[in-house]
């Protein structure tokens, strides 16, 4: 054995890197998946279908009929994006977030790749952070794609011009585009709390579908609680309570109040469920 002992290697590790590679890898794996693209394509379909339906229908809507802003779509294509946001945020966007956030840890566990990431070693905390960042990037991508698809189809099918805001003021087209981006930012922010809940649920199981379904159920339950007047005290603390608050971004002067409150509530959810996910995952036995 002496010969092999003299030959024994000391592995001098390469220099410790900052570790951003795992984040890029996560984003590239997430956004190269066909499932992700299918969901984003479905998100883009919402404004397209909505605009086509409005264009084809002959009857003109009375103001206030249908979802907010719908009656304005025919006069100004820029309202397609806002209307579709209202339509998508209660169910469709939470559904896609449920799939992505519920899949974060449970998906890796279910397919066995979690053990190899941890043995690499990715580090449990780092993996959680990277997974959360991936889910947040998806929220942003979904909101942006919905906005851009809305703008494009709106411009294609309807006249585009200065926008009359809820407050009655009129803003220019570039200003309206800026507001659209603000709305997209507001909506992605709104989904961060649910993403944190999904991440936590995902650490509880090795069955990704279970975590996805549970996350979607949580978002539906929150919205049901939000309409029960008996629970009024709870409403300001529900992560879904401010989901439709982006209408405040369509007033002149810009009203940042709901943006700020929303940010605080979402942050609370991120901290609480991030901590729960950490405490669950840091010592979890990886049996998959």
């Amino acid at each position: 054995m002496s010969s092999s002992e003299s030959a024994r290697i000391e592995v001098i590790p390469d220099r410790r890197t900052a570790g951003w590679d795992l984040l890029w890898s996560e984003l590239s794996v997430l956004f190269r998946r066909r499932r992700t693209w299918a969901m984003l394509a479905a998100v883009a379909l919402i404004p397209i279908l909505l605009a086509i339906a409005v264009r084809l229908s002959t009857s003109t809507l009375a103001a206030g009929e249908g979802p907010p802003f719908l009656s304005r779509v025919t006069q100004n294509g820029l309202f397609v994006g806002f209307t579709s946001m209202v339509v998508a945020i209660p169910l469709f966007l939470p559904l896609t977030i449920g799939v992505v956030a519920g899949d974060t840890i449970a998906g890796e566990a279910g397919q066995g790749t979690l053990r190899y990431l941890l043995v690499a070693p990715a580090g449990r905390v780092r993996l959680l952070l990277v997974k959360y960042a991936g889910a947040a990037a998806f929220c942003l991508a979904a909101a942006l794609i919905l906005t851009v698809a809305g703008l494009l189809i709106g411009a294609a099918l309807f006249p585009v011009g200065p926008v009359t805001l809820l407050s009655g003021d009129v803003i220019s087209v570039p200003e309206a585009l800026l507001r659209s981006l603000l709305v997209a930012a507001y909506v992605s922010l709104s989904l961060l709390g649910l993403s944190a809940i999904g991440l936590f649920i995902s650490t509880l199981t090795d069955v990704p579908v279970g975590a996805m379904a549970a996350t979607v159920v949580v978002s539906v339950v929150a919205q049901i609680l939000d309409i029960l007047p008996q629970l009024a005290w709870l409403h300001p603390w529900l992560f879904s309570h401010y989901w439709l608050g982006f209408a405040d971004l369509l007033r002149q002067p810009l009203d940042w109040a709901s943006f700020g409150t929303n940010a605080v509530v979402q942050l609370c959810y991120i901290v609480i469920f991030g901590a729960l996910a950490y405490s669950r995952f840091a010592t979890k036995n990886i049996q998959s």
Partner: protein
Amino acid sequence: MTVPAADFAIVTEGLTKRFGQQTAVNSIDLAVPSGSVFGFLGPNGSGKTTSIRMFLGLVQPTSGTVRVLGERMPDRLHTVLPRVGALVEGPAFYPYLSGIDNLRRYDSADRYASSRSRSARIDSALERVGLGNAAQKKVHAYSLGMKQRLGIANALLRPRELLVLDEPTNGLDPQGTREVRSLVGALAAEGTTVFVSSHLLSEVAQMCTHAAVMSAGNIVAQGTLAELRGVDTARVRVLTPDADLAVETLRHLGLAAERSHMDGTATWVLAPVRDEVAEPETIASALQSAGVRIRAFSVEEPSLEERFVALTGEGFDVVQ
């Protein structure tokens, strides 16, 4: 063993894992010498994979300690694991990514792996396991053996001080099995300690220098392969129609001969060899001059399989 404690790649003390009532790993004391090729033997469900998961910090021990490359696990996981390559309970990959992209993914998780050398390291790992031609194929189109090879490539992404391979030849074709064996030999020659779990005795017998045998969560034997075989229990086997005469002759030579089973019209006579009369030709000529008709004659090293069965029991049923 004479090697000082620092020269062990893996040392466990009283390592135990319980799942509810069941004790999957029961207070094992394992010592894997650095530079060895260490076979970890045991029937299905004996606790091999559970032990390996504890070595790698995937599973928290119920009690006891593990040191890997001299450091406590799982506390020192971040400095230990970059020096360890592992295959745990079969390979696992992202089916929708190509082989090369899967390795890229795992390599990017290791903070000590430089991204500049990544492509070169991945290529050479793929070459080493013979997957160079299938690198661009999606993993869902890989065969079982190809996945197994890719799993081994993942363990070889960087030079390692320790390789932990859980059933590395599972699903491999004969060429693949032979390549893994020679790969393990080459890695050991480079100085890597290789820890291989297996329930294939012949595999362990062919590539390992040391081994431990697990049974129902306990280590029932460990040491060098020679120690495990029991060096001084080689046996004479004689197939003869003159069984009584053969037994008598062998006993004259001082061997504790016994009749074993019949084989056609002849009988097997067995006798453990003692060193002073171990020469096969001496025994053969003694038998012949006594007029024993010999149909078959051999002096055999005891097989590891016999030891294994003796240590772990004959039963086919999983014990727990």
